[in-house]
């Protein structure tokens, strides 16, 4: 006898569609507004201005060498006529990362504060990460149709686990003496979280955000199958027409975006590059290096 899980899922999806339509519409509206807003801004930005912003960001957060790489590679993307496709992809990445953080940070905090929440959430995260990425496309498309909104939702589900996990881990790994100090000086639970735990968990949380961004970039490309748009379309066209050249160009654009996002977001959890810190501090405070105690 075969036991058909697929049928069960089908009827569950139908039930939700029939009974929760207003909720689904509200979600679609909220996410659609975010995604479209970001997309509108990014697409309205002229290439040269966008290029300049990326180069400056690279210079500030990473260094001169990386700024040169950013400039050249983005020029290449524009040359391949993929700039606006890249901006579309980027806006999907930003929107889904924002939503993933909006849900993932509080969830990670809740996990860190309660072993029971952690025990419940952890297997769900495992499931989310081990499911093949394509699987999310089907219910997303069924609930929300085709386009950027279901693309963003599928991407959020696929890319959220790292930020949840690393927020939880980062808070749990804050040195016990810091937590003791916080409590010993009379912190309330909220003060402990915002003044002691979160500031000291930032590197770990940012590592989670970085992974979430990388995952959402890979998912956004796949989500072009349900009409999310962006560079994914180029790759898809390449596959459908067996046009290696087009597919390859799309692939290169994705890699370039991935490298730029990775390097810049990695730097966010860390101190600003050494030379900048020294310059800034040197200007603010002439005797920056303390002599021996009096």
């Amino acid at each position: 006898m075969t036991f058909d899980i697929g049928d069960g899922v089908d009827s569950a999806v139908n039930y939700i569609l029939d009974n929760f339509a207003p909720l689904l519409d509200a979600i679609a509206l909220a996410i659609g507004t975010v995604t479209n807003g970001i997309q509108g801004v990014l697409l309205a930005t002229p290439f040269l201005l966008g290029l300049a912003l990326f180069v400056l960001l690279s210079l500030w957060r990473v260094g001169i060498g990386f700024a040169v790489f950013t400039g050249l590679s983005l020029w290449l993307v524009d040359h391949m006529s993929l700039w606006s496709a890249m901006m579309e992809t980027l806006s999907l990445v930003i929107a889904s990362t924002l939503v993933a953080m909006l849900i993932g940070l509080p969830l990670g905090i809740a996990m860190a504060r309660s072993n029971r929440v952690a025990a419940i959430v952890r297997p769900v995260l495992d499931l989310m990460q081990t499911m093949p990425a394509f699987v999310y496309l089907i219910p997303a498309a069924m609930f929300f149709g085709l386009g950027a909104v279901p693309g963003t939702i599928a991407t959020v589900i696929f890319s959220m686990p790292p930020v949840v996990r690393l927020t939880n881990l980062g808070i749990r790994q804050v040195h016990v003496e810091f937590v003791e100090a916080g409590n010993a000086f009379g912190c309330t639970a909220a003060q402990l979280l915002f003044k002691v735990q979160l500031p000291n968990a930032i590197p770990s949380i940012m590592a989670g955000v970085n992974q979430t961004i990388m995952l959402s970039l890979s998912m956004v490309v796949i989500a072009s199958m349900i009409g999310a748009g962006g560079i994914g379309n180029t790759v898809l066209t390449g596959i459908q027409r067996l046009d290696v050249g087009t597919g390859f160009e799309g692939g290169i654009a994705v890699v370039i975006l991935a490298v730029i996002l990775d390097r810049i977001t990695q730097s966010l959890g860390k101190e600003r590059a050494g030379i900048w810190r020294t310059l800034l501090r040197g200007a603010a405070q002439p005797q920056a290096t303390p002599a021996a105690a009096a």
Partner: protein
Amino acid sequence: MACTTESGLTEIDPQVKISIRNVFKIFGERPEKALALLKAGKTKAEIHASTGCSIGVNNASFDIRAGEIFVIMGLSGSGKSTMLRLLNRLIEPTFGTIEMDGRDVTRMPRRELIALRRHEVSMVFQSFALLPNRTVLGNAAFGLEVAGVGEAEHLRRAHAALKAVGLEAYGDSRTDELSGGMKQRVGLARALASEPSVLLMDEAFSALDPLIRTEMQDELMRLQAEHSRTIVFVSHDLDEAMRIGDRICIMQNGQVVQVGTPDEIVLKPASDYVRSFFRNVDVSQIFRAGDVARKTQVTIIERQGVSAAAALERMQHFDRDIAIILGRDKTYHGVVSRTSLIEAAGNGAGDPYRSAFLTDIEPIRASESLSSVLGRVASSAWPVPVVDDDNHYLGSISKSALLETLDRTA
């Protein structure tokens, strides 16, 4: 349990700041079962094997007085840190009561406990526990900021606290730019900024190298002299305990085995465990001259018109070669010997005592440490007199008495 406490007291002693009564801390799931076994006389290891519980503190009862430096000492794992953290309830006690100024800390509602931690009790940690995301000033201001003191006010008070520990120039520095000793000064400033009446210090100087450590002990004593607080100081180092402690509490396997002044602990150790602590300790650092002075010498009160003959008579009677001459108010005047008295009398000097004073004997002050007077006692032909700050005679230190004292711990 050999525990020298004043647990018989019924009325509240105004001197007592914190009163700890029958406090237990049992870590684990089944504390009642562990407590029953504990009362049945089972050891920590047996209890751990049968219940999985570990005993942090076992039936501690003692008082900490207002304004004293109270040192908790013991080997690793004896429950010192646990005992300290029970006082501000960073660790919840399993049984017993802890009263601070008459209020039961163990049953305080959360809100009141937070107020207590913000305004009355603060803490200094062994590994400093300075928050790396804050500057030195930000760390010093932490407690005040948490307590909701306005920005201008908390920065001003944090700055004053930094100034008190000599770090006012480092307010904008990052904590990782400081040396260990400076970090712990910041730790002290952070704890002092809220002007608490109780300061809890867990091995606060143990991570520092010996010179800096002594310097920090002096710093603590100086701050204590300026503004007297009740300080509970955990240490595993007897020298440190003896140096700064007004009273010392010795813990073993979670139990309090003795509470007393440094002298009491050295002179009357309650057990071999306590004795083992100072087997290698240099007692000459612990004792002051006044602790060793004995009134075994002949003393003679100088009066108008007394003759040398009376003095010689007394010295002969007690078979002593020297006598200490005192004023009517017991102030020290000098030392005479039989020979010097006879000589002076033969010369027909007007004052039979004054002209007979031995010139090679200088009195020792009672507050001087024994180590600093060893040489003088050893090289003197006679026992050396000891006087207090008002020049009153307290006794003398003879070579044999000195040797006996030094030999005590051998």
